[in-house]
């Protein structure tokens, strides 16, 4: 093995390659990112990201869910405008004001959520926005031929350029997305979790393509949270945490895994979780799921939650954790197994039955699934129980407001005005509305999906304390979060989930974040 090998970007030579580039050549970075920041409605998604991408390297971006990876990518692709910071392209300051501007610079992007149009064919998707045409009239044969060549270059000759994309599997859609990125004259390709929908053979093929690209001097920014993939194809790593880069341009071969996990997770808010309270030995089991399954998503899920207990489900996006909650709640109809509340079985697929039995759900997408945004706080609070506030079919708004005000005071909801519309509240206070709704309803079992999503770090502690108080009051709580630390900090017991299976069930105090990541990464990669 020699360090002078020119085109070598195979993983084994990665370290050599990095040394060669940095020490011998001093090339100008293709892309330099300095202090990039971006906020959405007051929530800071990026707060100072620094890294640079060299021509022909595979630069990996590593970070947990919510670390700001997707926002960063969309900013580089021109889909978001940054609030602050600086971008240099081949040494020159640039502004990427639109997706077209990014493409013109030579930045191609493969987005995580499949950014293809189902009603168009493969070739039509590949050349969307830069169709092969003269005076607006399409060159259909030429673009089909060019599409075939691109697909062949990607090792997917079997994909017909005339196939309708809506009929393709997610993996094939991914290929189409990649072909589209390559259909431009690119110097940099951003790949956002490209392996998420691929099987191992397809991943090997993807890596072969990545090696071909880098051999041609094209740089690849590769986003993944699968460490073993990064080890296989990455040259350097930048780690993101809470919207900032905690380490930038680390050589892959020289950075040990524990160091990477520490950089990804080591946060300072660990002490915000309220202490767990021992559960009474005779506390009744309020929620019990046995062999619960949803075909194609998860199966064989057994879990129990006792009064006063907080049970957590830990797993990555796509592991099936949110679907488990939704199935218990009856929003999805289980294909096997049963759910019991207080010992009584629920009719599957009926939200009505679940709510009447005393289950409440605070959904992941609070704004689209939980709140009626333009209605005042008090009506959102009483939404699940307003029959109680009606006399002869007429709603008694005075009582509604009074009950809502009690909750506002108890939960320290701000602003403390029951007539403010839910839309105007911060994420943390919107979360409190949902908790208040179930408190008013007298819920026995509370399902919380991503309780701190879109909630500022400061307000999280309040939400955590609130959840613990609810448990102490005798509610059985099942919580799902993509932030493993949150699950471990909140829950008494944790189920670790990957690919729709429960890998293990343990006391939260017996698990570290590192253990869970380790389990999940192995479980997913297997």
């Amino acid at each position: 093995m020699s360090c002078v090998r020119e085109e070598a970007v195979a993983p084994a030579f990665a370290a050599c390659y990095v040394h060669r580039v940095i020490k011998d050549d001093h090339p100008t970075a293709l892309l330099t990112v300095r202090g990039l920041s971006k906020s959405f409605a007051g929530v800071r998604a990026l707060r100072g990201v620094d890294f640079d991408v060299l021509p022909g390297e595979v630069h990996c971006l590593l970070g947990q869910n919510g670390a700001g990876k997707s926002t960063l990518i969309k900013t580089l692709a021109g889909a978001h405008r940054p609030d602050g910071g600086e971008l240099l392209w081949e040494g020159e300051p640039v502004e990427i004001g639109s997706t077209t501007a990014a493409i013109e610079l030579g930045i191609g992007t493969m987005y995580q959520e499949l950014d293809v149009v189902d009603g168009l064919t493969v070739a039509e998707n590949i050349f969307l926005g830069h169709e092969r045409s003269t005076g607006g009239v399409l060159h259909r044969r030429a673009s089909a031929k060019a599409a075939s060549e691109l697909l062949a270059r990607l090792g997917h000759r079997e994909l017909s350029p005339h196939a309708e994309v809506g009929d393709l599997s997610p993996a094939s859609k991914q290929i189409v997305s990649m072909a589209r990125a390559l259909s431009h004259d690119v110097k940099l390709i951003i790949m956002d979790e490209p392996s998420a929908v691929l099987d191992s053979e397809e991943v090997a093929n993807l890596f072969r393509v990545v090696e071909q690209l880098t051999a041609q001097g094209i740089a690849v920014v590769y986003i993944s949270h699968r460490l073993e993939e990064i080890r296989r194809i990455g040259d350097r790593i930048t780690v993101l945490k809470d919207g900032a880069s905690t380490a930038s341009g680390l050589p892959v071969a020289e950075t040990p895994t524990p160091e990477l996990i520490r950089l990804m997770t080591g946060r300072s808010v660990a002490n915000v979780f309220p202490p767990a309270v021992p559960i009474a030995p005779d506390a009744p089991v309020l929620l019990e799921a046995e062999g619960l399954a949803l075909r194609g998503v998860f199966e064989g899920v057994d879990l129990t939650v006792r009064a006063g207990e907080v049970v957590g489900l830990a797993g990555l996006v796509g592991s099936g954790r949110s679907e488990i909650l939704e199935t218990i709640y009856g929003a999805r109809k289980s294909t096997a197994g049963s759910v019991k509340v207080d010992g009584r079985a629920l009719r599957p697929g009926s939200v009505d039955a679940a709510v009447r039995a005393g289950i409440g759900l605070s959904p992941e997408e609070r704004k689209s699934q939980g709140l009626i945004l333009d209605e005042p706080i008090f009506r959102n609070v009483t939404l699940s129980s307003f029959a109680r506030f009606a006399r002869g079919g007429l709603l008694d708004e005075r009582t509604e407001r009074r009950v809502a005000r009690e909750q506002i005071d108890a939960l320290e909801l701000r602003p403390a005005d029951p007539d403010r519309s839910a839309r105007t509240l911060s994420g943390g206070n919107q979360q409190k509305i949902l908790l208040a709704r179930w408190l008013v309803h007298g819920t026995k079992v509370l399902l919380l999906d991503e309780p701190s999503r879109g909630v500022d770090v400061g307000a999280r502690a309040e939400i955590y304390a609130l959840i613990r108080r609810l448990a102490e009051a005798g509610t059985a709580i099942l919580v799902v979060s993509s932030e493993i630390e949150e699950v471990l900090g909140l829950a008494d017991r944790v189920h670790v989930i990957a690919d729709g299976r429960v890998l293990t069930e343990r006391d939260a105090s017996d698990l570290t974040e590192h253990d869970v990541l380790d389990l999940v990464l192995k479980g997913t990669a297997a």
Partner: protein
Amino acid sequence: MTTDTASAPPQPRSGAERSPLRKLFSGSAGRSIGLVVALLVICVAGAVSGGDRFVDFGNVITILSQASIIGVVAIGMTFVITAGGIDLSVGSVLGLTTIVGSLTAVQAVAADSSWLVMVLLALLVGLGVGLVNGVVIAYGNVVAFMATLAMLVGARGLAELVGERRTFVVSDPGFKAFFRGDLFGVPVLVIMFALVAVAGWFLLNRTTFGRRTVAIGGNREAARLAGVNVKRHLVAVYALAGLTAGIAGVMMMARTNSGTSTHGLLYELDAIAMVVIGGTLLIGGRGTIMGTVLGVLIFSTLTNVFTLNNLSTSVQAVVKGVIIVVAVLLQQRFAKRT
């Protein structure tokens, strides 16, 4: 305690598996076959009940003539609906263009120069109103339904104001000679519909404009990320719908020899129904000019059969309503899940 489940991980959801029948009907050819069959059934019903009165060249021309004006409007509507929008204003815009095209002053100018002045003015008014719709929707972020509902009311009112609630008789001999003429027995209006349909088919299927229209209706965000200027494109789509309303306005002036603010009343609803029956998805992302043409023909043939059998317009309306519901139900049944 560790409770590892022994079962294998569930298989990832595979691509859509569909029965051959479903595949046939979800393809664009399959949907058209269904429409052709429906049209044939109506024709057979017409031949059986109407006999020689139905199976007659003159009657076929009558059907096509009745189809031509609403057909042109429906072609423009196909683009709007394919792009994921809706245009409720086309009927009112049609009325407005007939007024502007036939104003006494305009006809006076036309008499001094050329009847093309009437045509151009009508087309420009249609195009202009469509542009306003598009700008309000794309750049003002007003929901298409509301923006064009406002235009439905506003354009009709404007037509009444401009025309002072009068009906203008089209007297220009050149205009009448051209548009009321025929070619080998086929009226000019029918030829105009055919030309607009062919142009629409070409625009939708063979140009970047059509391709991007489908993309925006199918996945607006994906189109934006691919570098399509979505807002500008939407303005163009609504402008196109306005332009077809203008063309239909010219045709209406020719057929009725008049311009009045009540021309094109409720055309927007008929056009939407024809487009959707044709197989264009109401949520956007899939459009077919062929289907729209068939939808137009089904409606006008049906009207013809009913008229020949002396059935009241009320019965026609009920049957049309049933047909619309059945068509949409079928479309949902055979459309693949998204």
